[in-house]
């Protein structure tokens, strides 16, 4: 559905997007992740034909963004960052304007708008000015605007910024719902968002793609392993000796000690087997086991490693 090949975008001396390539098949929800200034918004602006790439080819639904920009725009619904909307307009008039520009025939317009109002849950605010709505409703009107022409591709730039936790959940559910039939690209720098909504993640930093995979894959890839957290009561030295002796344990670190309890973080190759062995050693030695839990590396750490690691090298 979306093909990006060797795309480069410069703003004067700064390079916002450095030679990125990726493709998104139909029906995928792709998360574009990265720190601020990584080139996410620029990438989206290129996809939506707001600005052209300096090099490379980008096509959406088979149309090239440089030569068939109007055709591309007809097939995309785009919500720019912070959902900029005409604040003095009433929601209904705004949707009517979008429907007109989107070329929806007059006979179908009303039913189409009614459907979208239903999907996005904005019935209560239809006769309010957009500027008078809460941020959450503004975001929904922004989303409604992207859906009115039933586009093949949805591009959402940080769709949940500035919302409260309830609103965030509602918007995420809405995106997931929509994403069943459409290709969605959403950008964010909030990591749980990616895990909650997307089925594939691209991580960008300094205008480059630094990772590509499902959220789980990325979590596993980093540092290669799972880890276990163990908290036991007993003599610290013999505990660390015995735990290091377990075959599956590759690394052991004392996290903290509180009276006689010691908490260790173990890097292990096979979490389940290692946990069993830890348990049986504790039983043998008569230690009191207060905590034994697996901890897979969070996407946050992966993200930090990929983006900050790069930075330290430079």
């Amino acid at each position, binding site marked *: 559905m979306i093909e990006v090949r060797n795309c480069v975008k410069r703003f004067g001396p700064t390079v916002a997007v450095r030679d990125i390539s990726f493709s998104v098949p139909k029906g995928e929800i792709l998360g574009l992740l990265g720190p601020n200034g990584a080139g996410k918004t620029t990438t989206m602006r290129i996809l939506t034909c707001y600005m052209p790439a300096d090099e490379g080819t980008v096509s959406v639904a088979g149309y090239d963004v440089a030569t068939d920009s109007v055709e591309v725009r*007809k097939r*995309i619904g785009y919500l720019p960052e912070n959902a900029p909307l005409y604040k003095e*307009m009433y929601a209904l008039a705004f949707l009517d304007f979008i429907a*007109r*520009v989107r070329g929806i025939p007059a006979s179908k317009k009303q039913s189409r708008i009614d459907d979208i109002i239903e999907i996005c849950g904005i019935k209560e605010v239809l006769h309010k000015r957009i500027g008078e709505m809460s941020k959450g409703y503004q975001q929904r009107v922004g989303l409604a605007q992207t859906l009115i022409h039933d586009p093949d591709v949805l591009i959402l730039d940080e769709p949940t910024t500035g919302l409260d936790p309830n609103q965030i959940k509602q918007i995420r559910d809405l995106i997931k719902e929509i994403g069943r039939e459409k290709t969605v690209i959403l950008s964010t720098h909030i990591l749980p968002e990616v895990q909650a909504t997307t089925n594939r993640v691209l991580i960008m930093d300094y205008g480059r793609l630094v990772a590509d995979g499902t959220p789980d894959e990325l979590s596993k890839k980093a540092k290669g392993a799972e880890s276990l957290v163990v908290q036991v009561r007993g003599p610290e030295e013999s505990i660390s000796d015995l735990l290091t002796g377990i075959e599956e344990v590759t690394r052991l670190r004392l996290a903290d000690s509180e009276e006689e309890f010691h908490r260790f973080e173990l890097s292990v190759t096979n979490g389940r087997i290692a946990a069993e062995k830890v348990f049986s050693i504790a039983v043998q030695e008569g230690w009191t086991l207060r905590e034994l839990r697996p901890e897979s590396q969070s996407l946050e750490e992966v993200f930090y490693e990929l983006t900050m690691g790069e930075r330290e090298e430079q």
Partner: protein
Amino acid sequence: MRNIFAVARREFQGYFNSLIAYVFLVIYLLLTNWLFFRPFFLNGQADMRNMFAIIPWVFLFFVPAITMRLWAEEKKIGTMELLMTLPIKDSEAVLGKFLAALGLLATALILTFPTPIIVSTLGNLDPGPMWGAYLGSILIGAAYLAIGVFISSLTENQIVAFIISIVVIFLLYIMGNDMVLFSAPAAFASVLEFLSLGSHFDSIGRGVIDLRDIMYYLSVIVFFLYLNIKSVESRKWR
């Protein structure tokens, strides 16, 4: 075509939604009628010339007030990105905005119709110069609008757009004035006079409708709308 009207319709509604239209129309009508009727009874002539003589000066402040927001606001709020990623050509957006502003200006002019009607009941009003003056007003107003909309596209600050528009329009208007022409070199003077917004208005205002004057205003409008399209496109090559 459909897109031009959709944009124009939205902008025109926008004027009324944000009260700009009401403030503009009320103050415009009060001001022009006051300026017109104050000397009218002293002169005792059923003549509309006084009303139209001040039009270029009234428009100098009123037109930038209605054009300043057209692009500057979109840039400031960020709706520019929304608008330019809809399937609308840049030229369609520019024309739509221009037509919306023209619509508001035309509304203001139409609402001044009671004045000539009152005047004609008081005496013998010559309709020729009056219709000429209306035509001249809409032409010079449209030229001002084209300049104002273009300047609005250069900044995201409405106040800056307002002031720069006044300055540019003032300079383009005044350069055909006798005072300027007198001090300019002779060869240069006729060029200045031809290019000035003012000199063409005076002849239409007298009821002399010359095709050259009409062509002049249309060229100014096309020229600035073209610059406007280019400045909107400039986001692509910056």
